């Protein structure tokens, strides 16, 4: 493994993020080639976490843009500070400045409210990590606009002119695949698919994030969840659910799973009434042992 990749991986591991080589390589290439990294995967596998961990591993600012339908320029890029502008006009009432001069005054950087995208390209000290979270939830117009910002690292504000990044941000986009992203956006990005982790990796993740968890409990929790993932569910539990559950069980002072305990805390794992009934039925039929015992289910 290339030394730089190994170093990045170690740095990410130090932030308690269990990093596989594919992730470390992708993150390293994205930073070196200055390309956005598009991460896809099932909900709760730690896509967003990559950006957060990257920011703290690099010790730079994390700027997050949460996408939703109807997200527009005023929430993503910039907005004028109207209250301040009005106040300024009032204060200048007696001055001899012409309307043109006044206009130039109130439409200057001082009256600009920076939103995440603009913030990401105006950092003066170091490249921040820009997390564009759940980009699939934004609409197509926004995607096209985003593409423009990401490819040139510059933004044009009609009243001010073009703002160009001195330190291009490291961009991480995440998508839950609720809709297909445009081909143009995909082509612009490096691509990383994060799958559900293997048993060993998930145990490592649970133990890294929940240091107090007993070894046996961590194993049982992960095995249970991995076997539940094999069922047809409305909402398949992700790694986030494993962590929630392990933390809940630790808080309850458990060091192994039991029938009552599973029954009481199943809400940490399954977030759908039908799924809970489905899994309860399966446990009643085959016994909890079939879900947490080592070996073939």
């Amino acid at each position, binding site marked *: 493994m290339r030394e730089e990749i190994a170093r990045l991986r170690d740095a990410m591991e130090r932030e308690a993020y269990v990093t596989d080589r594919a992730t470390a390589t992708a993150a390293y290439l994205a930073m070196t*080639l200055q390309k956005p990294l*598009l991460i896809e995967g099932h909900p709760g596998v730690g896509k967003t976490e990559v950006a957060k961990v990257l920011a703290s591993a690099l010790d730079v600012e994390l700027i997050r843009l949460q996408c939703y339908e109807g997200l527009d320029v005023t929430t993503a890029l910039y907005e004028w500070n109207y209250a301040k502008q009005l106040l300024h006009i009032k204060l200048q009432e007696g001055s001899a400045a012409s309307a043109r001069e006044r206009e130039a005054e109130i439409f200057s950087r001082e009256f600009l409210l920076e939103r995440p995208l603009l913030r990401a390209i105006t950092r003066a000290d170091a490249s921040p990590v820009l997390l564009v979270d759940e980009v699939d939830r934004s609409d197509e117009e926004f995607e096209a606009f985003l593409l423009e910002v990401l490819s040139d690292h510059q933004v044009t504000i009609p009243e001010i002119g073009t703002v160009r990044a001195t330190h291009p941000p490291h961009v991480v986009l995440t998508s839950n695949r609720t809709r297909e992203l445009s081909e143009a956006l995909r082509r612009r990005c490096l*691509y990383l698919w994060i799958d559900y982790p293997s048993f060993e990796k998930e145990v490592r993740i649970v133990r890294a994030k929940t240091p107090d968890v007993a070894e046996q409990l961590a194993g049982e929790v992960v095995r249970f969840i991995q076997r539940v993932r094999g069922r047809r569910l409305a909402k398949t539990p992700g790694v986030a659910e494993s962590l929630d559950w392990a933390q809940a069980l630790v808080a309850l002072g458990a060091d192994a799973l039991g029938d009552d305990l599973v029954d009481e805390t199943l809400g940490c794992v399954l977030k759908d009434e039908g799924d809970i009934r489905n899994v309860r039925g399966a446990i009643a039929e085959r016994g909890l042992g079939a879900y947490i015992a080592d070996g073939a289910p």
Partner: protein
Amino acid sequence: MIEARTDIIERVTGFCRLLRARGIRVTPAESIDAVRALSLVDLGDRLDLHFALRTLLTTRRDELSLFDALFAEWWDAPGLKDAKPKASDAARAARRESRPSSAAQENNAGSPALTRWAKAGEAVDDEAFAVVASPSTTASRARKDFAAFENTDLAELQRLTSMLARRLNARRSRRWKPASGGSGARADLRRTLRLSLKTGGDPLELARRERKLRRTKLVALCDVSGSMDLYSRFLLQFLYALQHSFARVETFAFSTRLVRITEALARDTYRTALDTLAQSETGWSGGTKIGGSIAEFVATWPRLVDRRTVVIILSDGWDTGEPEVLGEALRAIHRRAGRVVWLNPLLGSTSYQPLTRGMQAALSHVDVFAAAHNLASLEALGRHLAL
């Protein structure tokens, strides 16, 4: 050293060619990135190279397993420099190419069914279509199966489609546009402030903004093969009505091949529309090649479908082609469309189960699978059309 580098660059560009040959789209820019990345990873380390090339050259999850297989194939076999399709691939491709020989005889361009419908239509004047019907959606009429439908009900159908079209048009987006006032408009601070400069900072004129209207498009693919004879006539009337009440709709008919009938349906009267259709070589009442026809749609009209498009397929799912072709074509549409609706007239019968192989292949790529055998079922369609 230089020689070794040239060699590895050749290996990588060759690999890109192999990926392209096997259907993973790799642009020249991506090949260049791949070569650039070579200096960034440890070339002696297979995993480094694998992960680096994978993150650069793939763009979606579906490509990953094929990529991994091809990577292993290419980098494990040093002698192999050209993309040679495997025998199994060739066989699959050959299967895909083949068309059952019955197609020729089924594909009779003459259209007895159309002529029949046109004749039946003569009994009723076309004006019936334009007249707004009395509000008599009696339960019995609403439930009547299309197979037993009379032309007098056309007006009712027209009323229904106008209602559907209104619903499609009435959706508001979350985006804003400047407005001249009126209901639903809100204050637009940005423009108000700009206007206030004229009056020395006193906002005398209030600018407003309102939500944009969301534009949904429709693409309808209607099965007009023999097995659909009873229904496709009425579905066609439905599509005709839709074409006339909704601006952004593209309509295609297919049996063994695909024909765009948007313009024919846009004719002034239903009769002239039918006449125009009768002259086109659609293969009315012939055999069915749903998969092939939809694949043709994907290949010929790739730009028609986007996230604002609802794709409606009207068919009973009786396909004489390979189910994989249908599944593959629908997957391509589903990936791009806002919604894919499959209307199956047979679904109206309680005993019907979607067990045909074609239907089985299709179901996983369809958002809504609904009946289309009477007016009530079409009325319920409104729910699915709005994006």
